[in-house]
């Protein structure tokens, strides 16, 4: 070994140090702030037996150690875990989290028989202006391109202990490619754990253009997969030797399907009823796809086929329940519906018994606090509590190919942890801490709401809701007037009252539409007279903006900010 000149070795070491320093923030920020130790806690590692009392050490965004006899590092911030249980961060296996709201599309031309004859104006193609396919048939769409790192929904999920979610595009037939994201990060890049994860398919026809029916959807899926096979083959032939061959046209949509038809990228198909799932399995078998079923309400009825074809299920926890009032003039509900609702609670237990892999998803629950209530239903109906934890942790991690990074509390894995006071599924337990990528997450004050609380409402469509106390500024042409607005929302009905310099009283005719528009009327004192004022505004996060109209006056405006959500 030749001797290195001393000056050279110093230079080399300096270079190495500089290189190390620029390796990224993890090195630069190395300090006591990112080392944590949760001590004296119960640890449900999922990968091993439950530890009744132990310590979990987090460092550098990863789990450094976990077990009964771990000593607390001196640079760690200590969290006393007495009375707490540490779980791997929960994974919601199907969401649209962190994606922008869909822009309201052109309305499908006033219902009625002729509607589909209308040529739909082409909105800016999500897949890109040069896509060869119409919107809805663009498999090249990737959520990675549109993830945002903030939003109410992310917080609602985190508050109940979800640290990671599969987020997928919202609409279309070939909906696009999903990503697995941690629910915390300053930039989208910090959130992404893996992208792309899978191709997503829903069997929803397009409006006004082919395919306009479910039959057409299947035909078009098949045709595009055949075309993708041909695209790959012709590209390969051309690449081997282009001479003498007309060049095949590039096509990003078909290119995006090549990993799918080669079984390298899984395909998630939305299917709930037995026949929907069977159709998806048939299509998957026809094209030898690596299939995953999302929804899966009746998947237990085809459990043997799912097990044989090795198809996992992302099982929705949006368990069906009756939402309509009892009315004497109404027909009794069909037996089929009654049976379905009862049977849906048993699906998870039956899948587990049949050896079908599955993971839980929130299934667009309007109210996330229903999630744990529904998990409890599945446990009451045959699923073991141990499997219930697995279905939230290691099973989704394995299904999404991140089994070495997430899903259990083991040294070296990403430090996503959910720490509860009480057993995770206990109705009285609370989420005490949530760690994502080794950092504690700011839980809302409302996060101390018990996990297992019975849902007070199912809100159609809207997330967030207007329940809460609002500070208002009302401007009717004579400067801003303040008021306090207290609102309570149940379903799409709203009640509440207003109090302030313009008067106090109950609001009436209040409602909340599914597009987050709030309306109500209330009498106000204006220049010595009591007049009825109508407020119409749009809710966005914790803010409402809108107009106030009073008969006989020009309209004014108002804003409202929510101080404490309920």
């Amino acid at each position, binding site marked *: 070994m030749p001797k290195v000149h001393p000056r050279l070795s110093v230079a080399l070491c300096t270079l190495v140090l500089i290189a190390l320093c620029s390796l990224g923030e993890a090195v630069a920020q190395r300090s006591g702030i990112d080392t944590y130790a949760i001590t004296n806690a119960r640890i449900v590692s999922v990968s091993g037996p439950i530890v009744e009392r132990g310590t979990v050490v987090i460092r550098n965004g990863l789990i450094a150690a976990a077990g009964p006899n771990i000593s607390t590092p001196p640079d760690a911030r200590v969290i006393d875990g007495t009375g707490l249980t540490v779980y791997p961060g929960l994974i919601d296996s199907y969401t649209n989290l962190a994606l922008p709201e869909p822009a309201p599309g052109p309305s499908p031309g006033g219902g009625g028989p002729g509607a589909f004859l209308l040529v739909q104006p082409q909105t800016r193609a999500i897949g890109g202006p040069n896509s060869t396919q119409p919107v809805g048939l663009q498999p090249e769409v990737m959520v990675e391109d549109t993830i945002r790192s903030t939003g109410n929904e992310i917080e609602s999920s985190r508050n109940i202990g979800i640290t990671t979610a599969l987020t997928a595009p919202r609409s279309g037939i070939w909906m696009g490619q999903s990503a697995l994201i941690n629910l915390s990060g300053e930039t989208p890049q910090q959130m992404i754990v893996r992208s792309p994860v899978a191709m997503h398919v829903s069997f929803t026809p397009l409006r006004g253009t082919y395919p306009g029916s479910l039959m057409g959807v299947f035909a078009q899926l098949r045709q595009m997969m055949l075309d993708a096979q041909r695209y790959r083959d012709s590209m390969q032939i051309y690449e081997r030797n282009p001479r003498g061959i007309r060049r095949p046209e590039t096509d990003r949509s078909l290119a995006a399907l090549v990993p799918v038809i080669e079984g390298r990228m899984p395909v998630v198909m939305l299917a709930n009823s037995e026949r929907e799932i069977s159709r998806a399995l048939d299509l998957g078998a026809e094209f030898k796809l690596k299939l995953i079923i999302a929804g899966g309400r009746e998947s237990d009825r085809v459990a043997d086929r799912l097990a044989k074809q090795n198809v996992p299920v992302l099982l929705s926890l949006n368990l069906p329940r009756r939402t309509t009032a009892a*009315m004497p*003039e109404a027909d009794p509900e069909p*037996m089929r519906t009654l049976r379905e609702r009862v049977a849906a609670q048993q699906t998870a237990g039956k899948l587990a018994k049949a050896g079908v892999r599955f993971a839980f998803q929130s299934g667009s629950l309007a109210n996330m606090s229903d999630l744990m209530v529904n998990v409890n239903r599945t446990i009451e109906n045959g699923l073991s509590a141990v499997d219930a934890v697995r279905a939230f942790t290691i099973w989704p991690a394995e299904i999404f190919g991140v089994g070495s990074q997430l899903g259990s509390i083991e040294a070296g894995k990403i430090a996503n942890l959910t720490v509860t006071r009480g057993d995770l599924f206990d109705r009285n337990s609370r989420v005490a801490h949530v760690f994502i990528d080794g950092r504690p997450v700011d839980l809302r004050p409302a996060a101390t709401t018990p996990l297992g609380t019975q849902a007070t409402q199912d809100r159609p469509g809207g997330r967030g809701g207007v329940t809460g106390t609002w500070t208002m500024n009302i401007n009717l042409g004579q400067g801003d007037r303040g008021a306090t607005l207290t609102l309570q929302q149940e379903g799409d009905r709203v009640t509440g009252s207003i109090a302030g310099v313009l008067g106090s009283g109950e609001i009436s005719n209040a409602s909340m539409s599914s597009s987050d528009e709030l309306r109500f009327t209330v009498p106000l004192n204006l220049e010595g007279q009591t007049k009825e004022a109508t407020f119409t505004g749009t809710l966005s996060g914790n803010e409402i903006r809108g107009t106030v109209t009073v008969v006989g006056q020009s309209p004014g405006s108002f804003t409202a900010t929510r101080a404490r959500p309920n």
Partner: protein
Amino acid sequence: MKILITILFICVPAFAQQIGNPTTQQGVIPARGTFAIRNARIVTVSGADIENGTVVIRDGKIEAVGTNVNVPAGAQSIDGRGLSVYPGMIDAGTNMGLVEVPQGANGTVDTSEVGELNPNAKAITAVNPHSAHIGVTRVEGITNTLTAPTGGLISGQAALINLLGTAPKEMAVVPQFALVINYPRIGFGGGGFGGFVQAPPNLADTLTANERQVEQIRKMLRDAEAYGRAQEAYEKDKTLPRPDHNVVLEPLVPYVRGERPVIFRADREAEIRGAIKFADEMKLKAIILGGNDAWRVASLLKEKNVPVILTGIFSLPSREDDNYDVLYENAAKLQQAGVRFAISTGDAGPEVRNLAQYAGMAAAYGLSKTDAVKAVTLYPAQIMNVADRLGSIEPGKMANLVVTDGDLLEIRTHIRYLFIDGRPVVLSSRHTELNDAFKNRK
């Protein structure tokens, strides 16, 4: 048998000579004659069957019925051996004559006037006596229909007609028999395919909207009642201010006074109950048309003596969990509960001729065969207050008769002779003519 056929062949052309060349459209209706149908089985409907009897027709009426009757001199004889005589069938729930081709020929559709409240839309005005539907219907043994307008809340006035005549006046048995009201429905989306329709309306909103519509009807009926009183008062005392006439309110007066019945179209239980309650409140003589849920409301119908014209025998049960035969059995259940009913096709025109099969299906599922025949003869006549003239074979009634070679309700039976108003009807129609034109095409 050969002799019988020979006689028949002689008889039919005899009719033909009487009225000229039969065509689908008739400019001249056959004249009333004197006929004796001999040695036939007579299903009187009002009493026992007469196995070997004679029916005498004269001057448009049934003159005699029995085993040993006096046959007038000069009567044309019809050999009824092996044949049966029934009263002509009556379908009490049609739009016969008001529409020719509903899809694609809007000019031929006269069932429903614009606007919600049309008590002065009289079906008899628009009945087309030369509609092809009339011809194809009567050759199957249906001699009378109640023709009702549709649409809106108050659709208009229904007419009971003979299916023979060159002008509405010739056809009318009761030109303004009943007011027709569409009781507001609980149920939407006629087509049943809801793809592009908005989300179905919620029930609470529908019931509220329905109440408002009932209020509209209530208001008009009250106005009519006041109008009637004002007109009468003026007639008696000309010193009172002279009230103007009103073509819309005027026709309502007999109905609001309970002098003539009001037909309510209603199928679901809540609709039927609502209609009965409304009729009670407004003191109307109610008849229910439709009545799919009538069996559920049987005791109320019996208590209030409200008859039901059933049109849904051949409808699919409306609820997923309904028993598969719930609508087939409806008539039998009403019969058991003592509710007055009739069986109807509920059809606009082309399918009325299959009325017998509707009655037959009810008999397959619990109604007795004799009651099934009554359900399309005497019962509708009674419900329409014309049992003195129609619905059975009794002396003095109108000679609306059908002669068959078997059970009237069975599909394999053929119609041999038909009389309406004592006039012999040639058994040809648009269908038979097209058949004759093409059956021998080589």
